[in-house]
């Protein structure tokens, strides 16, 4: 009885289905393939970006985490690792030559604690179940930042310089990854700390101005990273501290510079930080004769032992083509391309008015870098960037 009704149903439906498929089959196939491809792309993307996968998965454990400690631990692990590592990985892509170090959450228990606590010689952070929401994330992140960002360089900075850098990086981390913690962070860390130490307030304000011009990570942190490599294993000294302060002031002046003005110095020549900002913007310079003009200018700076060149231009194809022409007029032995990335910058257009502009940064580095420690040792210790010379195209 049942079988015959199925047969009847088949008999009834088959022509309709066949008719439907013949009419709309291609569309159905396209939808199916599109869905499959989208799914595959999402899986591939998450597989390539485990931090983003962790962040997404963490949401599944928010509600169970309110009832079960195990679920709460899973949530904290995914949330902390996902967000902090995603941010730190982002720094790696912004700051070429910088090898980002992420965190791995390791839950510890009382099992074997009497031995492991002393043997591991590591700190243990207490995660609270109650109290202010998001406090755990902020408190753990600040320690993670201290542990993982610019460890080599911070050794040579003053305590206030290092602390202000950590606070500013913390601010950027929370802005991007967990804006809901900003209130707690500002109230407890930023305000109190910068009130306690006027120098930190002053430095953080300068970082803010430099960051508004889009230069905090791509230039300032990059130069600090270079500095850490150059003076590696030397004793901390006041000269380096003063030089970093001078470099901060140099970048601040540039960040506040009115567009088109020629009054601001674009060259920073310290003992350790030696760099120049080269602006390619004026239309009359972007010509065949302009290439030799810029080439001569960069050659002159190379003779003055300038090591890093930050070429900034409005994000326009004509300018990128021009930059490539200038770059190609140098041999690989003289200069190498480190990074080419688009970014957004607030530019002073006059009368203290700032406008957000699409800009492009290209980092070139001289191959004659002065290092202040044994050259054989440095070769073993510091990885040289790949000897590549890709076109200075916009990064995808």
């Amino acid at each position: 009885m049942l079988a015959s009704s199925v047969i009847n149903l088949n008999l009834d439906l088959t022509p309709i289905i066949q008719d439907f498929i013949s009419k709309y089959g291609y569309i159905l196939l396209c939808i199916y393939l599109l869905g499959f491809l989208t799914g595959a792309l999402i899986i591939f993307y998450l597989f390539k970006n485990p931090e983003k996968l962790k962040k997404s998965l963490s949401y599944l454990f928010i509600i169970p985490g309110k009832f079960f400690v195990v679920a709460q631990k899973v949530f904290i692990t995914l949330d902390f690792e996902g967000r902090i590592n995603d941010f730190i990985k982002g720094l790696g892509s912004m700051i070429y030559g910088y090898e980002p170090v992420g965190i791995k959450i390791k839950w510890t228990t009382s099992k074997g604690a009497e031995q492991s606590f002393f043997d591991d010689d590591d700190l243990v952070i207490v995660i609270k179940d109650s109290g202010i929401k998001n406090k755990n994330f902020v408190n753990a992140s600040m320690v993670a930042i201290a542990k993982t960002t610019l460890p080599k360089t911070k050794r040579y900075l003053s305590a206030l310089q290092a602390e202000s850098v950590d606070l500013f990086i913390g601010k950027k981390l929370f802005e991007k990854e967990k804006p809901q913690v900003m209130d707690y962070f500002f109230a407890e860390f930023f305000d109190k700390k910068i009130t306690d130490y006027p120098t930190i307030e002053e430095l953080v304000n300068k970082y803010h101005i430099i960051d508004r011009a889009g230069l905090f990570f791509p230039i300032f942190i990059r130069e600090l990273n270079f500095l850490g490599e150059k003076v590696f294993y030397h004793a901390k000294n006041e000269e380096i501290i003063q030089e970093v302060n001078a470099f901060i002031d140099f970048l601040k002046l540039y960040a506040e510079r009115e567009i088109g003005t020629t009054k601001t110095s674009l060259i920073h020549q310290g003992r350790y930080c030696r760099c120049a900002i080269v602006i390619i913007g004026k239309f009359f310079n972007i010509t065949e004769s302009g290439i030799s003009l810029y080439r001569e200018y960069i050659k002159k700076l190379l003779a003055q032992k300038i090591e890093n060149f930050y070429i900034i231009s409005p994000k326009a194809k004509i300018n990128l083509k021009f930059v490539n022409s200038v770059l190609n007029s140098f041999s690989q032995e003289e200069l190498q391309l480190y990074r080419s990335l688009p970014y957004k910058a607030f530019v002073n257009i006059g009368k203290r008015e700032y406008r957000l502009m699409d800009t492009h940064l290209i980092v070139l580095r001289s191959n004659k870098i002065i290092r202040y420690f044994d050259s054989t040792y440095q070769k073993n210790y510091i990885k040289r960037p790949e000897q590549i010379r890709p076109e200075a195209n916009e990064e995808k």
Partner: protein
Amino acid sequence: MEKENLKIIHEKNLRNYLEKVGVFGFVKKGKAKCEFCNEMVTLENIYALFPYLRQVKFVCEKPTCIRQFSIYIRGKHYASK
């Protein structure tokens, strides 16, 4: 990407942990002091603990102490590399 371990403990496991490390009674009696502000550390305001010359040191959860602790970590972390 290279990764650094960040050791954490849930406050529900803290009492047992402190007992194993041998400082629970010390904390309970109010004798534990924050390494940076020298104020009393309790189970409620403890932020972190770390070993120093085979002794257990405590940090309270005041932001200023967390910041000073970060400075200590930076120095110690680099020296251990």
